[in-house]
């Protein structure tokens, strides 16, 4: 499905040097394409006339592999979808299997899940800010500040799940292991220090005149288009649509926490960036409350089967608000140890669909910023 741009505009007969369009292939090996992603841009001068994304370089056949291994063995594969947020991927998959089997999750495990999901959101958005600023030319500084802070969260993940990124932690009906000693205190320290980092990041970047002129009014989309294209997550909310699955579905125990959903009003790159900054502040509220209220108790439903899980016949769609948008897993079971059908609804891929529409009419240097503001991870786009 590699798309070749239409080259008929460059015929030799009517070649007018002043009106000649230029095809530019960006990627797949390019520092600002966030992985192996290629864009075929057609430029009029510096302005983008047409843009075709080409992807699939990182295709690993995740869905078909998952139909051939047991339910348990798919969990480490979901880590590798959106490898920045493996814990939310785990949760979405565990949620759909729990719906399929009708398993309950103990209270403490629900709290653990919320704490980990919000920490994931924090570290994803922190990395996002660094990468976005890197795309804008602030290469290195903002990224390293972001990574320095993100590493503190990843240390928490490593001491709990064993791995910084490939966590493989959530299980059907609970979680794999309980917090090691002192984990919650360490987490509280990280959370308490986070607003300081956010203030510093905002002072560094958000009021910067260059950044404002590079982002405001760039890549704006209307809420109608956003809904029509199926966008979700911060990109959708940046256009002013109030839609957050944490509030709509109230999966887990999100209804017990008081937090607000940031809403933008222009749908441009600046709004998309601010959505993430504000969401981090809201996540901190949830985290503080969750860490204070977390009860003791079992972390996994004793009825849950680890091996040889054969869910009853049926289908289930479990979705959560991952840091990038709506992440869903659709499963069909035919009472076999493997799912009959396994389908991922990846937010990165669907958010990418409006890339051309956002980019047309802007300069080629803005395309990088627009792509960065969508916040894609190619592991999830290509699957």
């Amino acid at each position, binding site marked *: 499905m590699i798309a070749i741009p239409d080259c008929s505009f460059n015929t030799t007969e009517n070649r007018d040097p002043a009106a000649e369009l230029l095809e530019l292939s960006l990627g797949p090996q390019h520092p600002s394409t966030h992985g192996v992603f290629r864009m075929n841009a057609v430029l009029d001068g510096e302005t983008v006339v047409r843009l075709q994304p080409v992807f699939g370089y990182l295709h690993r056949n995740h869905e078909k592999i998952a139909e051939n*291994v047991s339910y*348990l*063995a798919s*969990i*480490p594969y979901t*880590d590798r979808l959106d490898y920045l947020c493996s814990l939310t991927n785990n949760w979405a998959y565990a949620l*759909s299997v729990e*719906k399929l089997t009708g398993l309950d999750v103990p209270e403490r495990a629900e709290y653990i899940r919320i704490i980990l999901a919000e920490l994931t959101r924090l570290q994803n958005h922190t990395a996002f800010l660094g990468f976005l600023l890197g795309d804008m030319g602030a290469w290195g500084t903002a990224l390293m500040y972001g990574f*320095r802070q993100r*590493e503190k969260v990843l*240390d928490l993940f*490593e*001491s709990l799940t*064993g*791995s910084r990124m*490939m966590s*493989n932690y959530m299980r059907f009906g609970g979680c794999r292991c309980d917090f*090691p*000693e002192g984990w919650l205190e360490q987490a509280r320290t990280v959370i308490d220090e986070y*607003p300081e980092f956010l203030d510093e990041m*905002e*002072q*560094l*970047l*958000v*009021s*910067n*005149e260059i*950044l*404002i002129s590079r982002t*405001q009014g760039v890549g704006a989309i*209307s*809420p*109608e288009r956003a809904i*029509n294209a199926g966008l979700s997550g911060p990109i959708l909310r940046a*256009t*002013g*649509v*109030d*839609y957050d699955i944490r*509030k*709509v*579905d*109230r999966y887990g125990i999100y209804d017990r926490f008081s*937090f*607000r*959903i*940031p*809403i*933008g*009003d222009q749908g441009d790159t*600046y709004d998309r960036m*601010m959505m993430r900054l*504000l969401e981090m502040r809201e996540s901190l509220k949830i985290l503080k409350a969750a860490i204070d209220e977390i009860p003791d108790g079992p972390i996994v439903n004793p009825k849950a089967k*680890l*091996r040889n899980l054969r869910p009853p016949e*049926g*289908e*289930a769609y*479990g979705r959560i608000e991952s840091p990038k948008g709506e992440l869903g897993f659709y499963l069909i079971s035919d009472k076999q140890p493997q799912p009959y059908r396994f389908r991922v609804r990846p937010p990165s891929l669907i958010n990418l669909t409006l890339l051309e529409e956002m980019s047309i009419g802007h300069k080629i240097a803005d395309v990088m910023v627009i792509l960065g503001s969508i916040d894609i991870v190619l592991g999830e786009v290509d699957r």
Partner: protein
Amino acid sequence: MTQLYQQPRINGSIQPNQEPVTDTDMSLNGTTKYHHETEVSGIADPAPANRLSSGVPDAVPETRLSARPTAGEYGNTPERRPFRLPGSGIVQGMMVTARNWFGSYFDRKRLVTVQYPEQQIRPPENSRSIPFLVYDGDDPDAGLRCVACHTCEKECPPQAISIVGERDENGKPARRPKVFDIDISVCMGCQICAEVCPFDAIKMDHYLDHSSLENFQSLILGKTRLSKSNAYFHTINSTDATAVDARLEADRKKKEAARQKRAAAK
């Protein structure tokens, strides 16, 4: 662009009592009406009618960029297009850079790196790289806990483990592996083998330096290279190792008591 929705719920034009957008309203135009079954089996508790969340009854009013409080709650986040002295934002940003640069000479919080490989940070106990086989005592062959039950081989997601069980002279399984290979170029370190092992025989290592000049045979680790002593397990993850020791000891005692009971009954 034509009118796409009957009632666009755009920021600013939302009236509190307006009917929320339903799935049928979201179809592209009047000619293609998708009918969405909201009650797909599996979607537990689909919020009735209120698919968009400002319709959720007790939703907390959402934060809007345009109507954001300036002080307090959100720190220094500036308003959209505020008036400020041209260039002041850049100067402010450079102050942050300067603070980090000078701070890195004094403040441990601003200098978090170490001089690897001379200095190395000890990984947390739960940290994992690839699996290893635990043996008790001093003899790696006799003390191996593995009984070649093939559980990890079956559960390994990328099928990196390959086991051949030993047989005694009568052809009966001898409850120990003859071959236990892990292809670490395939292994993804997911620890499912360690999780499903009923005998606590396979555990996750901290060792990370697996590079070798040769690509194939040196990356397939056999039984001898995988076997590591229980004492080593104690050095990398003493919490888990102590718990495992206690569990195995309790098992052994239980079996011992059962055997004595059987002997007494005879």
